[in-house]
């Protein structure tokens, strides 16, 4: 077992860190304050290849692995959680299902633009009545000649209004399963600008405020029959598979947020003086920092393990990474919440102000315990595997 990163990954980390420090960090406070999507940063990331890291070169991507992608989200999130989730949702929730379940035509049509960042991707599963209970959804798709007709709405969609390509889930019928009638769910690729596809309200959020979170509304929205993603009726499996991968991205985001808060706290406690001494010289501070660093390190190992397990799946199409991804997300998200909360506490009154960025990081951290499967869902996934 080797815990050292390869030369490739070390170089990639250097790249992501330099980019984050120069291009992302200076805008992080403004992005949070204005709640504006950092379009210019996304264009710069597109130019640097960040929007297609694990996409094979044949589809215009960088041809790298999931570990490299996770490290990118981690380094971006160290300085700006918003920027981290833009890359994560685009890559894991839109590019990945098209790459995994798309036909050759769909891959050729959508992936080159997505991988180059000319287009941004999003994923629509959640509905007002269907969060953790994905079966509770109401959006319907009916085949009418050569077109599917979509009706319904999706909420809390990351990259919502800024995206161009959406992977959308809808009910395509009812099927009998173990003697009960259940909803048959299918996945579709929907393009922005399709008649009948509009946007509802923008969410006003606690954290990741620069990410564009919108309601998507489909009213007799007609899409080509060829835009069915994967087999009809396999939508639930596609959604679950996609979220397994997405959890690695969110785990990496949580990891970065925690690490970023730790870095700032280390710098702060060396400078801040009370009772004539730097507060870093007090044992309470030292013990808090030790706990924060230990948990961040443990989270990093878990995230990298989940990423390399998914890389193994990419090679053999057999290895399961579902549990690794759930554990990594559960642990990293709870670490991020704990570390950022401690970071605010160690910053004292200054930590509660928006000038010191740990306050934003604490707000950003909270969502990582909720989206792409709450911490409770991760515990369900992990325990179901233990008891099967």
């Amino acid at each position, binding site marked *: 077992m080797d815990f050292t990163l390869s030369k*490739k990954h070390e*170089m990639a980390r250097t790249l992501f860190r330099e*980019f984050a420090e120069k291009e992302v960090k200076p805008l992080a406070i403004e992005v949070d304050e204005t709640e504006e999507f950092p379009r210019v940063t996304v264009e710069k990331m597109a130019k640097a*290849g960040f929007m297609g890291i694990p996409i094979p070169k044949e589809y215009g991507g*960088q041809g*790298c692995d999931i570990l490299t992608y996770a490290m990118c989200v981690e380094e971006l999130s160290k300085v700006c959680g918003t920027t981290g989730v833009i890359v994560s949702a685009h890559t894991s929730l839109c590019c990945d299902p098209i790459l995994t379940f798309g036909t050759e035509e769909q891959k050729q049509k959508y992936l080159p633009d997505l991988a180059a960042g000319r287009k941004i991707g999003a994923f629509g599963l959640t509905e007002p009545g269907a969060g953790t209970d994905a079966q509770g959804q109401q959006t319907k798709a009916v085949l009418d000649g050569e077109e599917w007709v979509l009706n319904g709405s999706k909420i809390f969609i990351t990259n919502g209004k800024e995206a161009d390509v959406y992977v959308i889930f809808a009910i395509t019928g009812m099927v009998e399963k173990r003697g009960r009638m259940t909803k048959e769910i299918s996945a579709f690729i929907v393009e922005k600008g399709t008649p009948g596809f509009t946007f509802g309200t923008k969410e006003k959020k606690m954290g990741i405020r620069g990410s564009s979170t919108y309601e998507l509304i489909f009213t007799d929205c007609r899409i080509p029959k060829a835009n069915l993603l994967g087999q009809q009726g396999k939508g639930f499996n596609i959604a679950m598979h996609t979220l397994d991968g997405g959890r690695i991205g969110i785990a990496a985001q949580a990891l970065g947020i925690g690490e970023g808060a730790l870095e700032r706290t280390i710098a702060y406690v060396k400078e801040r003086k009370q009772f004539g001494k730097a507060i870093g010289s007090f044992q309470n501070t030292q013990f808090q920092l030790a706990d924060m660093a230990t948990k961040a390190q443990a989270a990093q190992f878990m995230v990298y393990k989940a990423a390399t397990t998914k890389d193994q799946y990419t090679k053999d199409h057999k290895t399961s990474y579902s549990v690794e991804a759930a554990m990594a997300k559960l642990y990293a998200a709870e670490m991020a919440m704990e570390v950022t909360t401690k970071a605010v506490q160690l910053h004292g009154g200054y930590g509660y102000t928006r000038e010191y960025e740990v306050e934003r990081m604490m707000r950003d951290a909270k969502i990582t315990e909720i989206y792409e499967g709450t911490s409770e869902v991760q515990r369900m996934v992990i325990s179901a595997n233990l008891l099967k």
Partner: protein
Amino acid sequence: MKIVVCIKQVPDTKGGVKFNPDGTLDRAAMMTIMNPDDKAGLEAALRLKDQYGAEVTVITMGLPKAEDVLREAMAMGADKGILVTDRVLGGADTWATSQTLAGAIRNLEYDLIITGRQAIDGDTAQVGPQISEHLGIPVISYAQKIEIDGDSVIVERQYDDRYHVLKAKMPCLITALAELNAPRYMTPGGIFDACDAEITVWGRANLVDVEDSNLGLKGSPTQIAKASDKVRKGQGEKINKDVTESVDYIVDKLKVRHVI
């Protein structure tokens, strides 16, 4: 078009400067970066490649670990990397370095050679022009803009208060300023490819038309007696007077110190 870009791995001064007990730089103990002027030169070459199509070869002379800077250049888009490394080349000053690089470049076909103006560890600005002398080709230094016009280059050469526009037939050598451009980032895929790529390693035996007496420490007319870290200046003095009084005040100060 074939472009050769000379690059150097230099200490990253952000990480602090460290010295050996004898006063020379402890390069092994310092973080390293691609010399900023060289990076601008590489970016200029890559833009010419994007615009006109070109093969870009990066070359460096240094310790085996200087291979890292070649891989960085290749991750940005350079096509080939050549490392010139040999114990007998160690301790080279600008003369011996330019002799070495010219000896290596004689193996290559080129239309254009681009070097940085100067390296941040030596600040001499001599190696580029010296290479052109050894190879017998024209040099245009301090380039702030580069264009191709048929078989010639048109370059804006920077001065303090103006610039000259010069045209030279290729092959020629250009020294680039860091201000020439904002170098692109490496790409993740470029990094993966660069790490898998072969780096050509040359030693003394590969250098063409160079005398031993012009190489390494023995071939270096300049010897560094001592190097020291930058001494931090004080805060200075701020005065709040009108223009005439301020000028008088400064002139008096300079007179007292016998500067004027």
